[in-house]
C-alpha cells in the first residue's frame, strides 16, 4: 500500500475524536483507514466524507469493529476494504501520526504547533536587576516566540503578565500574530479585573484558574521567560 495511506486505530474512542484524527491524517495523506468500534462512528465518518466529496467504504470486521476507508477524490485506493481483514487487527500499531506531541503541519504549511508546550508569562518584566531592561527583554522574548520553528500551544498570562495583552503594550502585535497562527492566548480573568484591563484587552481570551491549572498540568513542558 502506498505511503499515502494512514492507518488509525480509534477503537474505544468516541466521536468526535475519530473524526478529528481522520481529518488530521487527511492533511498529509490521500487515504485514511480507520478502525472504530461503533456503527454510529462509521455514520459520522460517512457524513464527513460525503460533505467533502471523499470516497467512503466501510466493512465490519467484528461485532464491535468496523474498518472505514476514506480517500480523497482522484485517488484510486478506495478498494482497500478488500484487503484481508487479518492484516488489520486491534493490536496493529497506528502510524502515530495523529496524536503524538510533535510538530504538525497544516495544509498551508504555516502553523507550527506543538501539543503540550505552554508559555507562562506571570509578570511584565523578564529577569531581575533592572525593571526597564526587563520590560525590553520581555518584548524581545515575545517577538522571538513568533520566530520559533515550533510555536507553543498556549500562552498563559497572569498577575502582572496580563498587561502584555492590553492596548498600549509593545507586544500586542506579536501576540496577535501568534494568535493568527493558532496559538491560544489566555489571560487570567481575576488579574485582568484587578488591573482594570477588561475594556482594553487587545488579544486572546479570558480564562480562570481551574483552566490554567489544567493546561499546566497537561502540558509536556512549561516555558517561562
Amino acid at each position, binding site marked *: 500500500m502506498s505511503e499515502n495511506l494512514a492507518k488509525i486505530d480509534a477503537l474505544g474512542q*468516541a*466521536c*468526535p475524536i475519530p473524526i*478529528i484524527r481522520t481529518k488530521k491524517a487527511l492533511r498529509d495523506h490521500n487515504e485514511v483507514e480507520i478502525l472504530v468500534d461503533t456503527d454510529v*462512528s462509521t455514520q459520522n465518518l460517512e*457524513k464527513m466524507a460525503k460533505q467533502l466529496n471523499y470516497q467512503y467504504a466501510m466493512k465490519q470486521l467484528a461485532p464491535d469493529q468496523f474498518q472505514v476507508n476514506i480517500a480523497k477524490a482522484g485517488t484510486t485506493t478506495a478498494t482497500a476494504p478488500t484487503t484481508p481483514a487479518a492484516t488489520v487487527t486491534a493490536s496493529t500499531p497506528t502510524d502515530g501520526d495523529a*496524536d503524538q506531541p510533535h510538530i504538525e503541519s497544516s495544509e498551508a504549511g504555516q502553523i507550527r504547533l506543538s501539543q503540550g508546550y505552554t508559555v507562562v508569562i506571570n509578570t511584565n518584566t523578564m529577569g531581575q536587576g533592572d525593571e526597564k531592561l526587563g520590560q525590553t527583554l520581555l518584548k524581545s522574548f515575545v517577538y522571538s516566540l513568533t520566530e520559533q520553528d515550533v510555536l507553543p500551544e498556549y500562552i498563559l498570562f497572569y498577575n502582572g503578565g496580563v498587561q502584555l495583552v492590553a492596548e498600549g503594550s509593545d507586544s500586542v502585535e506579536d501576540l496577535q500574530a501568534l494568535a493568527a497562527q493558532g496559538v491560544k492566548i489566555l489571560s487570567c480573568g481575576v488579574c485582568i479585573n484587578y488591573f482594570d484591563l477588561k475594556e482594553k484587552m487587545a488579544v486572546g*481570551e479570558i480564562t480562570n484558574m*481551574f483552566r490554567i491549572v489544567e493546561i499546566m498540568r497537561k502540558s509536556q513542558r512549561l516555558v517561562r521567560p
Partner: protein
Amino acid sequence: MTETAKFAAEQLIVCGGCNAKMGPGNLADILAKLPANKRDDALLVGYDTTDDAAVYQIDAETALIQTLDFFPSMVNDPYLFGKIAATNALSDVFAMGGDVLTALNIVCFPEDMNRHILEKILQGGQEKVKEAGGILAGGHSIHDRLPKYGLAVTGKVAPNQILRNDTVRPGDALILTKPLGVGIVTTSYNAGAASEAAFQQAVDSMQTLNKYAADVLKQHQVTSCTDVTGFGLAGHLSEMLHGQLQATIEAVDLPMIPDAYTCAEEFLVTAGGQRNRNFLQDKIKFELDDYALEEIVYDPQTSGGLLASVPADQVATVVADLKQAGVTANCIGRVTEKAADDPIEIIVK
C-alpha cells in the same frame, strides 16, 4: 498512562451530559415490551406519553411531579458539573409548570478518587436546588468507575396548571429559550477544538435554571411545554407533535451558540447527535442544504431550554416578556395540521 488508557479517560468526559442518554428508538422498544401498569386515574402523566416527568394527583388542588436525571460529566470542573447536572434535573419540574419541593442527590463516585471533588460536585448541586426554591433532603451514593451525578426531584403543580408536552394545537407558535449547540460546543471544547468564549457561553446556558423562563410562561396561555435535552430540538419537538401535527421551523430564527455552527461545519459531531438523526431523519425535511444546521437541530442538549407552544397571536407578547425577564427566547416556528399519510413531522426552511 498508555495512549489507550488516556483516550479512555478522555472519552469518559467527551460522552458526558445528555449525550450519554440512550437513543430514543432503543428505549421506546424496551418500554413497549414491559407489562402494562396497574390502572390508576390519579396518575395524570406517565411514561406512555414520553413527557418530562410523572405527575400524580393527590387531591383536587395538588399533584406531585416526580423526575430524576443523572449523567457523567461533560466538563472538568466538578463544581460546575454539580451545578449543570442539578439544573438539568430540576428542569423537568419547570417544564411541567410546577414548583420544586425537594431533591435527593444521586451519586456515583470512584472509591479511590479525591473526595474533595465530590464535595465540589455536591456543593454545586445544592446551590442550584436552593436557587430553584427547593430543599435538598437526602440522597444515595454508590462506588462506580466514573463519577456521575444528578437529582431525583419532587415538585408540585395544580392539576389544571400542568404543562403537558403533547397538548400543542394547530395554529400555535413555538418558542425556544436558550441557544442550541451546547452538546457540540462542550464535546468540541474537550477535544481542544472550540474556543474558551464558546465554552463559556455553553456553560452559562447549562447552569441557567429554566425556572426563570417557566415563571414568565405561567403568566401566559401556554398550550404545551417541554425541555430540550438529550434528544435534541428535533427529538423533543417530535415528541410534542406526537405524530399528529406538523411544525415548520424557520432556520434563521433558531438561536444557537455561533461556534457550534462552525464546529458542526468541521464535523465535530457526537454519537448522540447521530443516534438522534438515525431515529428522526424520516420525520424531518430540511428544505435548505445546510449540513451544519442539521447537526444543530439533532444536537443533544445538556440542560437545554424550554420549548413551549402558545397561540400565534400571543407569541410576540410572550417572547417580549421572556426577554424582559432576562431569558433568551425566540419564536422559532409554527404548528399546523398534518395529513395522516404524511410522514414528515418537522419542516426546517
